[in-house]
């Protein structure tokens, strides 16, 4: 189904946006051959029952996919983490928001590839609506020192005068590519 970590992450961020979040914090860190990520939103949150069902691969709240009742985001994350001996933690409070954290060894045979991180951030930043988002990306270099960059949706949107037309998105892609190369 999903091929990369970028796919899993964009799915989870999409969940946050769909939950009506007005602010989403996204973190992605590669360190000591572990990959770690965290998505925190202030969306509608889930009560225990909903969270339990969200873990079920054969359940989706039925509002979205007229053709199917199967959600894949969270169960797929669990399955991926399990198959490469990693961990997932989900905290959610109804009416407050949700936090999803996961970690696994990057060099595990069954670990998914990282995927296209530049495209991932472009996608995360261009969902419809006026939400805020802060992205923090950290990577350990060859000498063991970590480098990181941050992207703030309000800031880039302001610099580009909106994130609508392909001209702005093209420049956004160039911008993120340069940040990603810098820590590469």
């Amino acid at each position, binding site marked *: 189904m999903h091929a990369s970590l970028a796919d899993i992450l964009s799915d989870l961020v999409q969940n946050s946006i769909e939950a009506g979040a007005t602010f989403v914090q996204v973190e992605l860190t590669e360190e000591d051959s572990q990959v770690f990520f965290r998505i925190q939103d202030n969306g509608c949150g889930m009560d225990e029952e909903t969270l339990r069902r969200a873990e079920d691969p054969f359940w989706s709240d039925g509002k979205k996919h007229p*053709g199917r009742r199967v959600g894949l985001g969270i169960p797929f994350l669990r399955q991926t983490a399990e198959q490469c001996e990693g961990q997932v933690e989900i905290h959610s409070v109804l009416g407050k928001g949700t936090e999803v954290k996961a970690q696994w060894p990057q060099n595990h045979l069954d670990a998914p590839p990282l995927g296209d991180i530049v495209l991932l951030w472009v*996608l995360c930043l261009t969902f419809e609506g006026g939400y805020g988002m802060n992205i923090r990306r950290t990577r350990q270099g060859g000498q063991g020192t970590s480098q990181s960059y941050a992207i703030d949706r309000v800031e880039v949107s302001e610099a580009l005068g909106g994130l609508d037309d*392909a001209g702005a998105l093209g420049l956004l892609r160039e911008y993120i590519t*340069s940040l990603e190369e810098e820590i590469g």
Partner: protein
Amino acid sequence: MAKMTLESLRKLRVEQKEAIERRDTGDKSIHIIVGMGTCGIAAGAKEALNVFLGEAYTRKMTNVVVKQTGCMGLCHAEPTVEVKMDGMPDTLYGKVDADVAKKIVEQHLLGGKLVNEHVFDYPARDIHKE
């Protein structure tokens, strides 16, 4: 590539806008809406979207608006892409992978001709209403 700052990003955007004004493409904007439901993504919607962004940028077609939307309820035809522009009927394309996306840019956006093999005409919508 040298590291870009928010300042350089802002500057590039100003230059880009000036270039557009000189060419005066008017406000005939083209809208491309890519269905990014789970099925769409699994079937390659991200790659298609990336092609639209790349092509529009390198061809300096800055009057193009590229948007992602959620599930369109058309699993079997994913990835789906809707194209709206002056002088052409609003068109829904199905099974748009990276190659088809490129074809849509060249044929539909620039050539004013539908990519017939991939035009999808909403029969599923009526079925869902039942």
